[in-house]
């Protein structure tokens, strides 16, 4: 009895389903689109959730089912993921690429020129260095990703610098670009910085910046060399490191490092953060992450931190930047949906929300978005992050520029600059020999 009932029931159900299909029951025109997205794991509490919410809303409205993985950049985890997927030929549809990954994996990346072009049309050009990393061999191999991108301004303890060095950074770089005094800004050069560093060190609060195997080292040394006119390799792949500018910069660093802690040769990316937060340090080159942790754990320190322009050199003012990118793998089955999503994420409306969620850490790839009010509002101190987006004459670069990215990545990740400098300032090598060593290394980087 029971058995029969069940059989009957099953029969009815099957018949019904078949019937519905036969008469053309209003079914969905296309199979539901599926997307998987490997996103950078944001360290700002709540930023991941905000992003997830925004993406899920979009997915619902577009009949897309989306899976998100948040992947940390620590331990090269993000790089490893890209490498694994590139080799395995499977994985996410959209993957967040670390600074230099677009060039490494461009063969298997779907060009995203249409997305980039429509953004450019609407908002104007991308940052020059974001273009440098993503636009290669005449095509956009990936799209500049604002999420996770950051730059390296100075984070200065304004109280210490005012008291011990007589420099009022808040006065030079006020929270309003119109109030800047050109003379004062121009006076903020590496020479002034060195004089100040001596004084704060004498007072027991040195400046700290790492010279080691980490990205932070590249991100302040690269700009420092550039601002003296020293570049490892030019865009035509000529080795240009053997120059007076390089020697001059090394001499400068020899002097500057005398007034820094000896530990800088062993710091990792968080070394300067801890240095500042602990209250021992008076200035570091870093995005606002150090300030954010200080605000949580040592609020008195945070209230005295002012973010502002780096010093100028004889050949200009350069600030370090580490942009991220989004790439769509060629094997993705839903490239159009992926592109739609990336476009949606890059629009001003979405960016406006995401910049708030990241508390201003994420650095827009489109300068048009610098007008976001968050950098004026974040406190303490009020206006302390106003100058995190470039307001003045700073040029954003990544160490290794202007060599072709495939060689730039070698300069960057074989730690050419920190190693060369460390050989002199910590290892006691003659500057000339260190430069010669670097030139020989660079010769090897040209291996194709």
């Amino acid at each position, binding site marked *: 009895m029971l058995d029969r009932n069940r059989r009957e029931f099953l029969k009815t159900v099957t018949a019904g389903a078949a019937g519905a299909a036969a008469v053309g029951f209003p079914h969905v025109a296309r199979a539901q689109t599926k997307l998987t997205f490997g996103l950078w794991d944001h360290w700002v509490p709540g930023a991941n959730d905000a992003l997830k919410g925004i993406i899920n809303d979009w997915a619902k409205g577009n009949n897309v089912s989306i899976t998100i993985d948040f992947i940390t950049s620590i331990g090269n985890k993000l790089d490893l993921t890209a490498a694994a997927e590139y080799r395995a030929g499977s994985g996410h549809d959209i993957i967040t690429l670390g600074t230099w990954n677009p060039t490494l994996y461009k063969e298997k990346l779907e060009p995203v020129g249409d997305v980039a072009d429509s953004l450019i049309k609407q908002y104007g050009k991308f940052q020059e260095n974001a273009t440098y990393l993503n636009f290669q061999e005449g095509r956009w191999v990936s799209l500049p990703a604002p999420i996770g991108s950051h730059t390296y301004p100075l984070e200065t303890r304004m109280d210490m610098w005012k008291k011990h060095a007589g420099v009022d950074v808040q006065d030079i770089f006020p929270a309003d670009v119109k109030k800047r005094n050109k003379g004062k800004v121009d006076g903020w050069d590496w020479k002034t910085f060195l004089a100040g560093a001596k004084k704060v060190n004498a007072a027991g609060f040195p400046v700290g910046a790492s010279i080691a195997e980490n990205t932070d080292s590249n991100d302040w040394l690269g700009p420092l060399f550039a601002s003296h006119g020293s570049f490892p390799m030019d865009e035509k792949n000529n080795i240009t490191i053997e120059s007076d500018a390089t020697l001059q910069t090394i001499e400068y660093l020899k002097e500057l490092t005398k007034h820094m802690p000896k530990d800088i040769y062993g710091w990792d990316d968080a070394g300067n953060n801890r240095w500042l937060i602990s209250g021992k340090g008076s200035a570091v080159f870093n995005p606002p992450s150090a300030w954010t942790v200080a605000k949580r754990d040592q609020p008195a320190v945070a209230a005295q931190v002012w973010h502002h322009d780096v010093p100028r050199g004889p050949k200009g003012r350069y600030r370090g930047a580490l942009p991220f990118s989004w790439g769509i793998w060629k094997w993705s089955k839903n490239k159009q949906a992926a592109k739609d999503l990336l476009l949606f994420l890059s629009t001003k409306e979405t960016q406006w929300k995401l910049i708030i969620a990241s508390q201003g850490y994420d650095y827009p790839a489109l300068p048009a978005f610098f007008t976001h009010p968050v950098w004026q509002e974040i406190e303490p101190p009020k206006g302390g992050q106003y100058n995190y987006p470039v307001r003045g004459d700073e040029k954003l670069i990544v160490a290794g520029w202007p060599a072709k990215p495939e060689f730039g990545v070698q300069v960057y990740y074989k730690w050419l600059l920190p190693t060369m400098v460390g*050989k002199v300032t910590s290892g006691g090598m003659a500057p000339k020999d260190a430069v010669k060593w670097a030139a020989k290394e660079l010769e090897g980087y040209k291996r194709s």
Partner: protein
Amino acid sequence: MALVQTASVERVRPARRGRRFRSRSVLGVLMCLPLMALIGGLVAYPFFYSIYLSMLNKRETAFVGLANFEYLLGHETFWGVLQFSFIFTFLAVFWKAVLGFILAIVIHALPVRGQRIWRGISLVPWVMPLALSSLGWWWMYEPTHSALNWTLVALGMNPKPWLSDPFWARFSVILVNVWYGTPFFMITYLAGLKSIPGELFESAEIDGAGPFQQLRYVTLPMLKNIIAITMLFSTIVTLGTFDIIRVLTRGGPRGSTHMFGTYAFELGIATGDVPLGASVSLFMFPILAVSAFFILRGIRQRASA
């Protein structure tokens, strides 16, 4: 042994010998099949694939033969890696063996009931997942908050640049490896010590041998085999050290603590030069092959004993 065995079977049932022998072989191969599949698919194939990779150019578009190896040998950086890999392995294995031996002897000398707790405590470093305990060490060395330096200063000594000076950085990573590996040596030696018949010591004592003479003439000869095998196995594992260096120094300062594994990782993953990375790793192989020769010889001796 095997000869005797087949001979006896032959004498009893000459007719069935062939079939049994064949079915034995088939069974033997079958039983080894999972092992062979595992090793063939997940070790041998990727191993030969990485040999192939090591002979390609950076973009993996052309075959370059041994050019990558030539390139490495022409560069100072790689010689540094080679040098430190040797220094690290030699010093770490040496100290693990010495400290493990001392500890094993000392624990063995305790009353049996008391041994358990000390043995347990001594195993802690080896039991903790190395990547995580390395983080703990790193947090101890860390320049700004260093607990070690605080302790040194409290004891009236100078703080040390644990991770920022090439000498101390090398010292630091070796120390962590010794900390991690000593318990393994201790436990193997202890196992060996327990297997030495007590009468040997008694008769030595009756002959008037003091503790050091007993050590020299009884313990060491009895443990010779086990010491050799442990050291050789440890050499292999130590040469492949990865976690400690990735966590503590990432190869710094100035490349002074790079070993094969970490340098290959950096080349392959960070700079995208997989062929060169593979070449670096493969340099381990000749060194390991020499160890293998000794291990195999040791095992053959074991098998024939």
